[in-house]
């Protein structure tokens, strides 16, 4: 029952994502062609041709139907700037983003949760004050600025543009090392900001549990303090924290956009930047649908994972 409900809910969310994409880029702007060609010399005839090409001369319901059916077939339209199918362009950029976001998320989750647990368990200790203070400050730091700062401070130590050098030897090891070298600054930037949030989430989640009566029971049994923490407090506190980590996945996405822009990392974030400077509406629309869809799927995964981890949630 619950499982079916979750999948149904996610499906509905995906449809809402599609509707949102249509609404934002076809309904809100009035005439997209006027905005897209803003600043470029165009004649009325050229605009009319563009309108016909994008199907903008049709009534809105028909436009939506065409948009929605092609979306279902994986057709996101043709990019105005790249002159290629949006889906192809996005697919091409997926790899670098997955590498960056994946690396950063793994490190940030591990580090953030660990720091959060330690800080909360020794509340108001020096460690807690310092980590909480640093996290609050990092939370206030705009990601892109941190990236620019790191770039300036490290100087030539790390490459600051792109994902690999053109003159690297073609064998796998050299290529991997080169990519890893390029990955350092962007992932440090992303980790710093995301990790701060996860640390604060984990800390407050554990603080919520600190006064739970079952911890008194555990202490009364004669368990050592660290065993009480490891075996009783953390398993309870980590559940809401994990859910929040997945819920805040949008934060990682946002961070990726600016980080990739600063470091010219050839992923979806940089593509976003290229598309909005165009502006290339169909590409933006495709990116919005893809990222929002990914977030919805992540959220579904979090839900399922929560069902597996928390016995209080009935999965079936």
């Amino acid at each position, binding site marked *: 029952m619950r499982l079916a409900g979750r999948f149904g809910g996610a499906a509905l969310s995906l449809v809402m994502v599609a509707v949102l994409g249509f609404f*934002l880029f076809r309904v*809100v*702007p009035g005439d997209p062609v006027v905005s897209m060609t803003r600043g470029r010399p165009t004649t009325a005839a050229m605009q009319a041709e563009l309108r016909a090409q994008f199907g903008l001369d049709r009534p809105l319901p028909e436009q939506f139907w065409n948009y929605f059916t092609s979306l279902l077939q994986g057709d996101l339209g043709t990019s105005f700037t790249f002159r290629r199918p949006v889906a192809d362009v996005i697919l091409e950029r997926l790899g670098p983003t997955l590498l960056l976001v994946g690396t950063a998320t793994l490190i940030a989750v591990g580090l953030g949760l660990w720091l959060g647990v330690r800080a909360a368990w020794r509340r108001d200790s020096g460690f807690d004050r310092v980590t909480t203070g640093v996290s609050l400050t990092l939370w*206030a730091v*705009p990601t892109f600025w941190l990236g620019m700062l790191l770039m300036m401070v490290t100087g030539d130590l790390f490459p600051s543009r792109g994902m690999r050098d053109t003159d690297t030897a073609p064998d796998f090891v050299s290529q991997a090392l080169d990519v890893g070298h390029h990955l350092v600054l962007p992932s440090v930037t992303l980790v710093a900001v995301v990790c701060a949030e996860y640390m604060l989430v984990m800390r407050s989640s554990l603080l919520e549990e600190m006064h739970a009566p079952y911890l008194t029971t555990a202490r009364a049994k004669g368990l050592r303090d660290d065993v009480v923490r490891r075996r009783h407090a953390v398993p309870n506190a980590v559940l809401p924290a994990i859910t929040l980590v997945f819920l805040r996945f*949008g*934060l990682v996405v946002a961070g990726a956009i600016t980080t990739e822009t*600063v470091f010219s990392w050839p992923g979806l974030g940089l593509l976003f930047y290229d598309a909005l400077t165009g502006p290339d509406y169909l590409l933006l629309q495709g990116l919005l649908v893809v990222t929002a869809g990914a977030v*919805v799927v992540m959220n579904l995964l979090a839900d399922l994972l929560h069902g597996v981890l928390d016995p209080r949630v009935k999965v079936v």
Partner: protein
Amino acid sequence: MRGVGAVGGFLAGRVDRGGFLAQRAGVAGAAVLAVAALIALLAPLLIPADALDVTRVTDGAWQPPGPGHWLGTDHTGRSVALLMAQGTGTSLFVGLTAAVLAVGIGTLVGILSGHFGGLLAGALLRVTDFFLVLPALVLAIALSTVLPRGLGTIILAIGLTSWPSTARMVRAQTLTIEARPFVERARALGGGHTHVIGRHVLPSVVPLVLVNATLAVASAIVAESTLAFLGLGDPTRISWGAMLHQAQLHGAVPQRAWWFLLPPGLAIVVVVLAFTLVGRALEAVVTPKR
């Protein structure tokens, strides 16, 4: 027994809990904000229009800090210090208005979906949850791309995309309050929706909303700087984010023009941190200790 003797001990109770003044970090944050507000109000009055006009400046481009321009100059030769002062207003204004918009929508949606049951609440909750998981920045980017550039667009884009967390929180608080026996008592006395919302729900939501609004300003300022950095800001106005956009565009990093990169970013961090600290201090004051 707490008897009649304790009557009138209301103030003492408050002092026990530690008022706002007991929260040192919060007070420091409030002081920073007062200074920032002062700068924002005075800057337009004190800075001559010529000083920030690209066509009339006399200093050279990329000058490091020195006499006459103690924070150096940007790529057009304008004084970074003056740009900073001028940008304060924009950042604060956008942050405040966008936060008020977001918190307003969030409070309304939260109370409606918490108080009324049935289809309306279900639909509102569904929509809230949908927007809660979507990456707000991506939506804000999309909105600011399709709408004409300007201050209004930025405010709208941030405000319309950052209400769901407030709505979630207000809804939870509304449900908590409505489950309390005193609301049942009010209903049994004959009180209707307006009475319950006006006399019981709203007063208990307000402190939390205030806390939330303070924290919302903090994230709205970061959001504004990000949108401006991506070139989606109001091109006619100076803001800290827009300065960083210029810095990126004109290569402040390769030029090692740290004086153009550090001040706007630091200003954002300090002001955002100040709002966060004030918010946390308010939170500590309004949430009763267990």
